[in-house]
């Protein structure tokens, strides 16, 4: 086990930022730490990298706890903070040389590492430019590159795409997928479900300082009632008790009519859609358009907490 987080707790005055958080990350695994703002994700991450001391609980890296600030086991982690932790006044290369030196890299090894990560994030041609002149997306990529210099086994990313345009986000995801393919484990903190869905093998959902779910995507969808959704547009809104009959159809989890749009959630798309359409037709209704949506983590979160993931 590369990372083991056991019963972490952290209190700030009267506020319990983290009440009880436990999860694990295997070597090469990609784990998403998903939760709304204020759920305790950043505090959890801070405790993992040793920035904040836990009131209770334990963090084990490679089976051992980190015993001091200078514990070299900290080098197993590459930390990408939420803020752009870069010196704007210095060039990209100078920034990377500094951060590499903090992990004991020097000489040729340092130069090679700088070249490697600059190439990975496609900033090699801007190495001599001051970071202050970079776009937000370039800074985000360099922010990640700075955490990769010492070849960490686990890359810990704390909301690494905040404020990034879609194109840059894609570029960052390409980089992360490359890393995942090369065997680097990822612990990805986010409140964007689509990011977690794209990148993570397993999702740990945190809410109000507590882990409310910890499973693979498939497992979460199955266990927490995530469904396929159908949006059926009708020619006219017909009265009658057909909606009750539709809700009784095997595989239909939920059905409601809004204007002329019938929203239906079914368990299995291929098996249940014909049944739904038959029922609609039997009640004399005409379908003008049909659309389906995949299940997503938003629904899982809603199902788990009763709140939207993007609630303030």
């Amino acid at each position, binding site marked *: 086990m590369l990372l083991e987080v056991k019963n972490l707790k952290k209190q700030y005055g009267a506020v319990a930022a983290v009440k009880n958080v436990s999860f694990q990350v295997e070597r090469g695994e990609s784990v998403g730490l998903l939760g709304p703002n204020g759920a305790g994700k950043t505090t959890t991450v801070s405790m993992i990298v*040793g*920035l*904040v001391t836990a009131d209770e609980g334990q963090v084990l890296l490679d089976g051992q706890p980190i015993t001091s600030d*200078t514990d070299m086991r900290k080098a197993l982690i590459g*930390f990408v*903070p939420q803020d*752009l*932790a870069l010196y704007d006044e*210095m060039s990209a290369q100078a920034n990377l040389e500094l951060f590499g030196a903090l992990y*004991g890299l020097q000489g040729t090894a340092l130069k090679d590492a700088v070249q490697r990560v600059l190439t990975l994030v496609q900033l090699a041609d801007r190495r001599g430019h001051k970071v202050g002149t970079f776009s937000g997306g370039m800074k985000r990529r360099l922010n990640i590159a700075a955490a990769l210099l010492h070849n960490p086994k686990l890359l810990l990313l704390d909301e690494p795409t905040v404020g990034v345009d879609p194109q840059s986000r894609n570029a960052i995801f390409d980089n992360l997928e490359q890393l995942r393919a090369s065997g680097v484990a990822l612990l990805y903190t986010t409140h964007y479900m689509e990011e977690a869905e794209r990148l993570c093998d397993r999702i740990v959902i945190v809410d109000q300082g507590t882990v409310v779910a910890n499973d693979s995507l498939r497992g979460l969808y199955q266990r927490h009632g995530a469904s396929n959704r159908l949006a059926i547009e009708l020619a006219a809104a017909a009265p009658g008790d057909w909606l009750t009959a539709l809700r009784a159809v095997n595989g239909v989890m939920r059905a409601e009519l809004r204007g002329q749009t019938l929203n239906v959630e079914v368990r299995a798309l291929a098996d249940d859609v014909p049944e739904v359409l038959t029922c609609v037709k039997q009640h004399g209704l005409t379908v003008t358009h049909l659309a389906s949506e995949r299940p997503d983590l938003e629904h899982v979160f809603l199902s788990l907490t009763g709140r939207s993931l993007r609630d303030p």
Partner: protein
Amino acid sequence: MSPVLLSLVRKDLRLFFSDRRSVILSFVVPIALASFMGAITGGKGSDKVNRVSVLTVDQDQTELSAKVMKNLAGDPGLEAAVSELAPARSLVRNGKVPVAIVIPKGFAESSARAFFGSGERPVVTLFTDPSHATEASMVRGILTQHVMQAVSTAAFNGHQGAETIDSLLADVEDAGAVGDPALRDMLSGISRWQHQQATQPKPAPNEETEKGGLQIPFETRVEALAAEQGESYDGYAHSFGGMGIQFVLFASIDCAVALLTERQRGLWRRLRAAPLSRSMLLLSRAISGAIIGALILLALFGFGAVVFHIQVSGSLLGLLMVCTAFALMASTFGLLVASLGKTPQAARGLSVFAVLVMVMLGGAWFPAFLFPTSVQKLTLFAPTRWAMDGIDAMTWRGLGLEAAVLPTLALLGFSVLLGTLAVSRFRWEAD
């Protein structure tokens, strides 16, 4: 130095020099201010005595008081002008003139009797501007000299003196058996000499005959406080030292603000996530701050030496010791500011004020010996005072290496104190 420490220090230096505003503030502004302050506080100094402006008020209007007034007007150390009581008081109160002398009515009669130990002494009032304590002391000394000379001349030669002796003799005779026979004999002798002088033809008055009477047994001499022969006070040396100290402290505030900004920008999180000790992080700051401070002082004295011919009349090693110790102290002061300040803005506001107070108390603007005694004692608790004393001692005072040891030790002591406080108060977990 370990490679990690070296990288951190190099990073800090690179950041400092990349900020043009900070570099201008730290190097160019102190040079400009030091040049200006040096010029207005006497420049290189010279043999020419700065004359003190003084107003004289004669309420006695006697021959003796006129003589004192004349002597004061002719003194090379004074620029005396005759005035009346009210305007003299007003001019001193408004800071237009540093000192005014008021000779009271009855001065001639009382002073002559007091000269021989009889009767009340007349009170000569000095109106002084509190910010010119040195000038007041100087005027008081000159006044004593001229009064003694005029009174003694009158007592032995003048009409007033004869009357005084006769009156005193009568007093002694009246005392009868209880009178002092020795005093009576002395007064009788003086009286006989006065009558003999009065009946003899008088030579043409000249400087020697004008003096006569009792002479003051000492002379007042103004001496420049330099240890080496021929050296005098160098306003530029003091000014460059003072401005250097001030701007090194300002640079230390910049370092503190940079540290708080690092924390605010999340850089502190990345640095602390690396396998580094907390002491390494703070030590790198202290070292880079000290290097910047030492460079500022070096640049200032280099400029002063080339342009204004400032000389290290004492020990160069001593000067380097004091400057290095001060730069370290300033750096730890910056760390303390960073540990106490919650935001960069708050830290800057409070620490600028603290620096200005320290600089003023330290005598960086004006020499500490110009302060009142009570304030001078208070300044011993200001590290800037020790730095200024050390720099003055090694430059224009021309003292040896031994004079740099105590200021250096004091500054190192302050460094340890401030550094310890900074480490103990540093909020490591704050974002």
